């Protein structure tokens, strides 16, 4: 197994941290040379997962930390998201039937559907008291 340098940061379980997420990604994106479109997609995937975790992930009202670790190697971007919330595997969640009409359209499950479609690979594991979600995406440089 090769050792990868990872750039990491932590977010508190508060929606206001979405702007921190954006700022951190801008900085890391610059440092790792991640193309803008990919940065947007990573931001969106992490936004949806983070929003899910803080909305449904905690049984108490305490402050929690959610850790994000990003590395890029051989044109592959890997993002690991770790939280100490209740066990939840988003990969098992079925994608909603895509709507053809306005009447059929429901928004439940849409966030996870976006994540699965934006990323090349999404892998879940439960390690001790932590949910660990690993996202992978090829870096296509134009």
């Amino acid at each position: 197994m090769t050792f990868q340098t990872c750039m990491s940061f932590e977010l508190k379980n508060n929606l206001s941290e979405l702007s921190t997420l954006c700022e951190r990604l801008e900085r890391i994106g610059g440092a790792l040379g991640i193309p803008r479109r990919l940065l947007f997609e990573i931001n969106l995937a992490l936004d949806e997962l983070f929003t899910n975790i803080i909305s449904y992930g905690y049984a108490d009202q305490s402050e929690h930390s959610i850790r994000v670790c990003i590395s890029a190697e051989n044109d592959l971007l890997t993002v690991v998201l770790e939280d100490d919330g209740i066990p939840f595997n988003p990969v098992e969640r079925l994608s909603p039937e895509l709507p053809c009409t306005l009447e059929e359209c429901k928004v439940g499950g849409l966030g996870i559907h976006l994540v699965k479609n934006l990323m090349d690979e999404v892998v879940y594991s439960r390690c001790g008291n932590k949910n660990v979600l690993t996202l992978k995406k090829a870096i296509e440089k134009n």
Partner: protein
Amino acid sequence: MEIIEEKRGPLSTFKLQGRLDSNTSQVFEKRIFDAMSDGTKNVVIDFKDLDYISSAGLRVILKATKALKREDGKIRLCAMQDYVKEVFEIAGFDSFLTIVPTLDDALKSM
């Protein structure tokens, strides 16, 4: 996020700037529904300066579209950056929403 609103008769145009996410979507939802209470029947949303949208933003657009349809109103979305448009496509929203290239196209189609 900045929202610039122009109202002309029953038509309201919303120009969005910045990021439409879980933090800002409620403000936008309130602006649209306030306009509807104030007589707006048709809505144009200009995405030219919108850098970012998440499912929270899609949810507001969906809610507004359903509410306008109940009133026999119309909604048009325009001038999306390609990666914003991709989010609408992945969500399948492009099958029931009219997304046009420019603000002019949107206004003409009203």
